């Protein structure tokens, strides 16, 4: 059923067309990306346009409210909050995306193997995943970080491990139904290796649910990362991430609520954008796959009319 094995090509839209369709057909995807992409760009390049260095202290101007000189005010050491917000965005987003990527790298092969081989392999792998999931997320992350000592790398590892079972489960459930399809049986009959069947035949056909799940996970990963560094288990000073900024700002919240408000708002906006994007992708990709399915059923009878 993968197109390359067919002698006749199915009229599929090019990936460019599909990408434009995906971005603009669903308003949720448009809104989500419309927020996330600027935030990423601002965290990378934002410090080129801000007037102050994020690490320079101005002892005279401590805990200033927003003003012409400091657009969002200053923190307890007189550092410019706007520039620190951009710098903190780098860490926060990096943690969110890389830990999700790690969960995908670990979880997807586990799910593929589990759903493809079934039987005892499946039973053992899924029980392990169940057990990882039976420890509350934050507690497990906390435990891993305490054991490994806190650093940015370990934080990413901890969140990645915590989220692995969820991706493994999703991948497994779609692989289970997919591995009964005739194209998998055909590949087996051709004598293809298990690795080939799992990664070259099944994986391309189950990518939609994986993409949806990981886009939802990014928001959670940012949230868990921020929570852990709020507890003082993150990368630590002087490089701020938003969770750590909030935990510092909490000590000054009655005298300087601005300091607390900005990183909170930044976190809210980014996580909300990933949630909206995830929901939009779910609708868009589900619609796309169900359309494709219908099309593929038609192929067996006549050429796809689409």
């Amino acid at each position, binding site marked *: 059923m993968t197109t390359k094995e067919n002698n006749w090509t199915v009229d599929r839209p090019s990936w460019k067309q599909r990408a434009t369709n995906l971005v603009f057909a669903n308003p949720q995807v448009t809104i989500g990306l419309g927020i996330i992409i600027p935030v990423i760009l601002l965290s990378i390049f934002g410090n080129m346009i801000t007037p102050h260095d994020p690490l320079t202290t101005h002892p005279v101007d401590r805990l200033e409210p927003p003003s012409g000189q400091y657009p969002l005010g200053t923190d307890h050491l007189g550092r410019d909050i706007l520039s620190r917000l951009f710098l903190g965005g780098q860490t926060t987003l990096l943690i969110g995306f890389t830990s999700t990527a790690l969960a995908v790298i670990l979880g997807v092969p586990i799910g593929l193997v589990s759903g493809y081989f079934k039987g005892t392999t499946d039973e053992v792998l899924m*029980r392990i995943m*169940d*057990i990882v999931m*039976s*420890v*509350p*997320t*934050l*507690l*497990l992350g*906390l*435990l*891993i970080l*305490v*054991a490994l*000592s806190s650093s940015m790398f370990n934080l990413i590892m901890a969140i990645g491990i915590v989220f692995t079972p969820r991706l493994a489960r999703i991948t497994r459930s779609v692989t289970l139904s997919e591995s009964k399809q005739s194209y998998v049986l055909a590949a087996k009959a051709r004598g293809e290796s298990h690795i080939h069947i799992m990664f070259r035949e099944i994986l391309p056909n189950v990518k939609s649910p994986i993409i949806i799940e990981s886009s939802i996970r990014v*928001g959670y990963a940012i*949230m868990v990362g*921020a*929570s852990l560094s*709020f*507890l003082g288990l993150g990368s630590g000073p002087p490089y701020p991430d938003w*969770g750590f900024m*909030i*935990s510092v700002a*909490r000590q000054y*919240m*009655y005298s300087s*609520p601005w300091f*607390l408000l900005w990183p*909170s708002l930044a*976190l*809210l906006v980014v*996580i*909300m954008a990933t*949630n*909206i994007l995830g929901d939009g992708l779910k609708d868009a990709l589900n619609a796309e796959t169900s359309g494709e399915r219908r099309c593929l059923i038609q192929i067996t009878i006549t050429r796809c009319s689409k």
Partner: protein
Amino acid sequence: MKRVLTAIVSLFIVSTAVFAITQILPGSAATVVLGTAATEEAIKNIEAQLGLNRSLWKQYLDYLVGLATLNFGVSLTSQKPVIGMILPRFVRTLQLALVTTGLTIITAIPLGVIAAKKRNSKIDHLITTSTYLGMSLPSFVTATLLLLVFTSGSLAFFPSGGYIPISQSVVGWLQHIFLPALSLTVVVMAYVLRQTRSSLIETLESKYIRTARLKGVDESKVLFNHALRNGLLPTVTVLAINFGWMMGAVVIVEEIFRYPGIGELVVLAIRNRDLPVLQASVLVPSAAFIFANLTADIVYTWLDPRITLGDNQ
């Protein structure tokens, strides 16, 4: 029965994993008790006293036997039995979880039903959009903002933290528990609401509801007698999953509100490197979560007799 067995096995493996992880913690337990300036000899004595000179295998076996008899050992910092420290705190955390679940049920389910009933209306859009807010606010942000707004200035209706037992003063208990519970509710409510809405919409579109309507059953009867019973099934699962989330989130919320529950104990134990306390304060909430899942499964079969336990899938 098979579910109960699985729960016991997971409990066993989780406790093994917790033991393994706490074994690789940096720093010796003896230095926790004595401080870093202790002499070689004093450390040896304490290690013997704590049983740290035994083989790892022996320590593990003793640990398991301890768990089975609810003996979690002795705290390294306070020298008191851990079980005595854990129990009252766990009861307080459970109170917090129960109040949160209660608040969630009385808010999320009615709102979810309204959103499903008036699908695609303005009210539905308003409710659905506001759930994004709940899903996107990390609980430490909600908690801190609530603390900022309601404990100082003109809106200072609540104390900034602490706990009063319900036996001492009902009002005081409620005042202390309300803000932490509210910051948890904001999140849980969003998930429960979305689940209630989507599963109820699905149920309302099913054939048996159409039949009921064609039969001329009153619309409110269709909703309450026919649809809700099936439509609320997945909500039970979501509530159980969120119980697990709460058991983790209390670490942050209790720390912020200085609520003396099990979450605050986790932070304390990490700070003091108090191994036995840390082991117990991670294990007890995990066990509670496993138990909550088991209960949800049983409630599920009770509500929907078509599902039988033992053969999942």
